[in-house]
């Protein structure tokens, strides 16, 4: 064997030390986030409502079915094309309630402010939050303010919690998908993530893409009016369409087959993804939903979505299968099949 061939025997591995600290990837909505929930939060708070791992808890109080949820907002920059942290804080929580089929009623809003934040900025954010709540028909009925030392926060964080009312007999949950069900998507994916990325230091590029941030509860009401044969709703936020479909496939122990050609993606978003080496299936949305619908009701629900302003480009993007439970696959435009995996952390813009 020549010297070169010998040197080729070298190899390259190395396990990292045990995970001992929180990494940014733990907040990505991918498998690292799921691991944190599974290993730290679920064992600590174990109860059947939490164990459903839906976007909202549904609890019965004196015969009323209440949806209850909470969400924190740490978006950077605070203002971005198509929205800001204030409107996002309303839409995020309203949508978590809406995905349970609930009519959103009341919100709380808690502000964590960093010393030195301009009051002008705070006023703009609060004004936007107020308008978004009014537009969505919900009221902010309680709140809290804390100030942290300069350097201990990033300008402004917001937490909102929300309560809504769930119609009698409605049971939307990630464990309800059944083989044969259709997978519906309300519109083009990736707008929010690309709008935010275009503003980030180091990646600035000219982009006309606006965040899709929007409250989805009236769209959900229109879908429910068309049919009660909805099994599950999810808004594909962090982790994108991939995380949302994978979570449902795992919770329901079913497979899913998506059709690449049917998934709408704006050309500007596709272009930005090509340039950065990102896959739109993993990019965040803040005004889209996926619905798992019984096959016989799929067309009626789709028609109802398309009549609604937030569902004009809705599509049936795939089918729930009995094959390969827990796994999401994608039929490519070439007619071949591949896995749609859940990412560990955030997608990384690749080299060159």
């Amino acid at each position, binding site marked *: *064997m*020549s010297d*070169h*061939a010998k*040197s*080729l*025997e*070298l*190899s*390259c*591995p*190395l*396990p*990292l*030390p045990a995970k001992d*600290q*929180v*990494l*940014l*990837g733990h907040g990505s909505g991918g*498998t*690292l986030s799921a*691991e944190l929930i599974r290993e730290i939060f679920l064992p600590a708070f174990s109860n059947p409502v939490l164990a459903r791992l839906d976007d909202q808890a549904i609890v019965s109080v004196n015969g009323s079915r209440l949806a209850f949820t909470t969400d924190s907002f740490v978006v950077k920059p605070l203002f971005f094309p198509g929205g800001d942290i204030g409107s996002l804080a309303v839409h995020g929580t309203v949508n978590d309630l809406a995905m349970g089929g609930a009519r959103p009623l009341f919100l709380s809003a808690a502000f964590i402010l960093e010393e030195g934040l301009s009051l002008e900025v705070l006023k703009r954010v609060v004004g936007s939050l107020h308008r978004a709540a009014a537009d969505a028909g919900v009221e902010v009925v309680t709140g809290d303010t804390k100030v942290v030392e300069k350097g201990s926060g990033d300008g402004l964080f917001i937490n909102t919690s929300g309560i809504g009312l769930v119609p009698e007999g409605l049971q939307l949950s990630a464990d309800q998908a059944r083989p044969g069900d259709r997978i519906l998507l309300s519109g083009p994916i990736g707008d929010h993530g690309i709008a935010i990325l275009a503003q980030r*230091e*180091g*990646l600035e*590029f*000219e*982009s006309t893409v606006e965040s899709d941030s929007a409250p989805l509860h009236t769209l959900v009401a229109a879908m429910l009016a068309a049919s009660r044969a909805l099994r599950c709703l999810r808004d594909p936020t962090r982790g994108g369409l991939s995380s949302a479909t994978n979570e449902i496939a795992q919770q329901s122990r079913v497979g899913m087959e998506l059709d690449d050609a049917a998934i709408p993606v704006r*050309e*500007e978003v*596709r*272009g*930005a993804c*090509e*340039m*950065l*080496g990102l896959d739109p299936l993993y990019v965040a949305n803040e005004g889209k939903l996926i619905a798992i619908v019984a096959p016989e009701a799929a067309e009626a629900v789709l028609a109802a979505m398309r009549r609604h302003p937030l569902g004009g480009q809705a599509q049936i993007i795939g089918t729930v299968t009995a094959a*390969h439970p827990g*796994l999401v*696959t994608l039929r*490519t*435009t*070439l*007619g*071949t*099949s*591949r*896995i749609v*995996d859940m*990412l*560990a*952390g955030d997608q*990384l*813009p*690749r*080299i*060159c």
Partner: protein
Amino acid sequence: MPGRASQANVTSITEATCKGGVPYSLGAKPRGRGAMKYIDEYRDSRIARALVAEIQRRVTRPWVLMEICGGQTHTLMRYGIDELLPRQVELVHGPGCPVCVTPLETIDKALELASRPEVILVSYGDMLRVPGSRSDLFRVRAQGGDVRIAYSPMEAVRIARAHPGRQVVFFAIGFETTAPANAMAAWQARREGLQNFSLLVSHVLVPPAIRVLLRSPENRVQGFIAPGHVCTVMGYREYEELAREFRVPIVVGGFEPIDLLEAISMLVTQLEEGSTDVENQYARSVSREGNLPAQRIMEEVFEVCDRKWRGIGAIPQSGYRLRPAFAAWDADRRFGLSTITADEPAECISAQVLQGLKKPVECPAFARRCTPENPLGALMVSAEGACAAYYHYRRHAAGE
């Protein structure tokens, strides 16, 4: 990409070289709607089927082909192109993943730099998760290191201008593809006399690696798809030498499904006919001479040197380092890092994978002890690493 052209002549060199797989990053830029249509043609299923039928007609016996570039591996897996090919055509995956072959000791140097309070380390995104000897850049960042992701080294130059009190280091890795942009950053820093900017350089070159693969007694590869981005910069004269020396056909290929099927078809045709020519499938981007202004700036800033490749070992004359005239912008010298060395332990089979001797799924650790969350080797880290591409797209085919 629309908008990036505004940075005048700096981008006119870097743009053609960085992420050249999409046609609109090249000289004449179709924009908006037209641009995407142009890409869609290279993903058209009818053209794909016609090319597959063509390959099926031509092939009479088994052939082993290697795509050099990790971007090409990614496309093959993402579109399931291996499913479409006749079984006689076997594709093995080459060493063209810059993140995967950057040596351990260079990663360790970056980790050391990023841990220093005065340093802002700026890196391409997918380097952050690559494991060094004891940590990775994400972990160093979690412990307070200032690590930032950039898409271009010129962003790092801008950060240096904006933070005159900090030391800004750009982690300048990659093949010939990223070399012009990295050279431009060094050149610009010298022109401005930017004292707080430097580059941690670990560039690698494709042709010496192909030469090592072809000289190996275990080599099985009979034809190569050469990396289109690299050849956009360098042209393909060097590949003509390789084809002559080793009597092996080489086709310069692009990165879309149709590009790769066409390149495979051209290689199979040559192999069946007994030819050993260099052909250019990616002619919409690549010329024989390459991008001459880019080559000039590389020549001015870099010199060829020996280089270690992670998973392969030391290859003579297979890398770039900064020339003495740019020594003041060399992070290795500025921070006295040359004493940091690391040997690569031998556990995973990435050496065999990088040479095309084994497929990722043949590794006992694949998808079990070695996953993207807990990678045993760099091939599982980058989206362009062969193991990660298999993990993300083909796990079900492996009987998982």
